[in-house]
């Protein structure tokens, strides 16, 4: 190893250390803001070191420099523009898009390496190259196509409903055989670019077929899983080009995505396999079983809700994705402010799957300047509920259903927010429609619960106005 290569290797190591340290700083919201710049400068150092090495080796053709710079410029500007302009409600699709391009780039790196080596001579491709190339191409392509579909679903370009077509299983089987057969052929030592393209095509179609049948409410799991895939694809690219920087960074992302996938699946009380097999529920259920005046529910008005809230000492807001769908974040913050001005303690209880990606609801509330100290995680919130005077449920359903604590219901075993343990409950909801699990929410028929039928945004605005009139 020459001096230059040694220095470069140490720069990669330093970058890897900074990536880990940057992630470590995310242990608390207070330090998290320092983590991102640290990680970013590490990335800049790794890229600068690579530029230096390319200059030193002096093997890069002028055309390649130009093409590289053009791609970097266009990609960088587009990426920056998207990141600056995207709305916080649309973060999941953007993250999904970045997963797609990351996985795609990893696959392309492997393909380019394979094409180059097979141009040299077929014996230039070692088993290591063949194995890592095939893995990289398969995982990268599945991630690329799957993430684009996921982004399309989140953006509403593709229906959020599970798309199921006859013969889907057979198609998946055929694709798997193509991919495995092709891979086996390539691993046996044959070097054949068309076969690699077949594997690539099968993996792309497989990625599409994998994500299409998955419903909108399962997106937190899907995005986390695709994030893990991207990390592994990048690590495989590291094996292809013998670069420890890519291997370490990819492995970190793989671990992070893996943990989040598991956490999300647990919070939904479903196995990862069950979600991937898919074709189950959407969460955005439109089955309007027009509520109001139902059997034993207690309906209340904005004024009733205002009285309960204005004379409480401790209020817990329970927001769900419905809040974000109605764009009611500003209204909920206004309500919290009005109540806090009266000396009332206001907190937000956030279920892990509230939103379209892990932790999404926290970002949406942080965006409207709700201090993170008021955001309570599930366990913390559940300790508080017995001392809460009024819980205000907005746009959340299944995650508050006490039926989950009993055996033999579709929700059994799912971790929930113990809203029913607070002294009083107000639910803002458009109708008595069911949630994702398709069962009645026993919280609504609890004698302590008042149902306020309204759109989240308008309902909250009415309550804010009523509180203001009430207390002058």
């Amino acid at each position, binding site marked *: 190893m020459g001096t230059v290569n040694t220095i470069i290797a140490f720069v990669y190591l330093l970058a890897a250390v900074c990536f880990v340290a940057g992630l470590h700083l995310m242990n608390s*919201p207070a330090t998290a803001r320092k983590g*991102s710049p640290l990680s970013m400068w590490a990335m800049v150092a790794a890229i600068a070191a690579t530029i230096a090495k390319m200059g030193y080796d002096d093997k890069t053709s002028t055309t390649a420099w130009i093409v590289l710079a053009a791609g970097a410029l*266009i990609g960088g500007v587009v990426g920056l523009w998207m990141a600056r302009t995207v709305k916080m409600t649309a973060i999941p699709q953007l993250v999904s898009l970045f997963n797609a391009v990351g996985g795609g*780039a990893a696959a392309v*790196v492997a*393909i380019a390496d394979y094409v180059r080596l097979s141009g040299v001579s077929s014996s230039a491709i070692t088993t290591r190259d063949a194995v890592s190339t095939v893995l990289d191409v398969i995982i990268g392509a599945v991630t690329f196509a799957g993430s684009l579909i996921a982004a399309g679903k989140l953006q509403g370009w593709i229906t959020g409903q599970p798309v199921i077509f006859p013969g889907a299983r057979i198609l998946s089987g055929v694709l798997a055989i193509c991919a495995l057969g092709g891979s086996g052929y390539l691993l046996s030592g044959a070097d054949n670019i068309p076969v690699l393209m077949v594997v690539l095509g099968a993996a792309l179609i497989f990625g599409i077929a994998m994500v299409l049948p998955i419903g909108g409410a399962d997106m937190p799991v899907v995005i986390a899983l695709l994030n893990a895939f991207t990390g592994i694809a990048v690590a495989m690219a590291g094996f292809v080009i013998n670069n420890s920087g890519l291997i370490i960074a990819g492995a970190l992302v793989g*671990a992070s995505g893996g943990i989040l996938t598991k956490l999300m699946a647990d919070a939904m009380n479903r196995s990862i396999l069950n979600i991937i097999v898919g074709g189950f529920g959407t969460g955005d259920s439109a089955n309007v079983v027009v509520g109001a005046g139902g059997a034993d529910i207690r309906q209340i008005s904005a004024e009733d809700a205002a009285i309960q809230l204005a004379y409480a000492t401790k209020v817990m807001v329970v927001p769900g994705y419905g809040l974000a769908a109605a764009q009611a974040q500003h209204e909920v913050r206004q309500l919290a402010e009005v109540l806090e001005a009266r000396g009332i303690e206001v907190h937000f209880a956030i279920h892990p799957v509230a939103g379209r990606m892990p932790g999404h609801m926290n970002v949406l509330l942080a965006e409207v300047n709700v201090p993170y100290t008021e955001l309570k995680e599930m366990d913390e919130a559940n300790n508080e509920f017995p001392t809460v005077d009024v819980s205000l449920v907005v746009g959340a359903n299944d995650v508050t259903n006490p039926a989950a604590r009993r055996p033999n219901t579709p929700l059994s075993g799912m971790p929930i927010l113990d809203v029913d343990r607070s002294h009083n409950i107000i639910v803002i909801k458009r109708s008595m429609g069911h949630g994702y699990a398709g069962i009645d929410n026993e919280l609504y028929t609890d004698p302590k619960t008042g149902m306020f039928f309204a759109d989240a945004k308008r309902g909250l605005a009415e309550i804010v106005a009523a509180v203001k009139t009430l207390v002058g």
Partner: protein
Amino acid sequence: MSAGLVSDISIFVLAILAGFEVISKVPSTLHTPLMSASNAIHGIVFVGAMVTASQAHSAVGYVLTFVASLFAAMNVAGGYAITDRMLQMFRKRPVPRTDAEPSEGN
């Protein structure tokens, strides 16, 4: 199996373990910024695109270099920008409000 491959696999496995250890301590409040940050970190694939460029000497090589560079640059630039934007929102006390804005349309 070469010594190089064995040590690469060791690095890979140890990095996964380090990742598990660090990331399992992140509170769920920060899961979105975490995912976005890890998203930015896999932008290191841009280094891969650069290696591809350094070995490209044919039309196919140049096209693949361009695609890899475009994708990876989008990933790395966008990833860090969005992570930073999100983390700026996580404050203990609200910043003084310029409260003329809730005009976000839809």
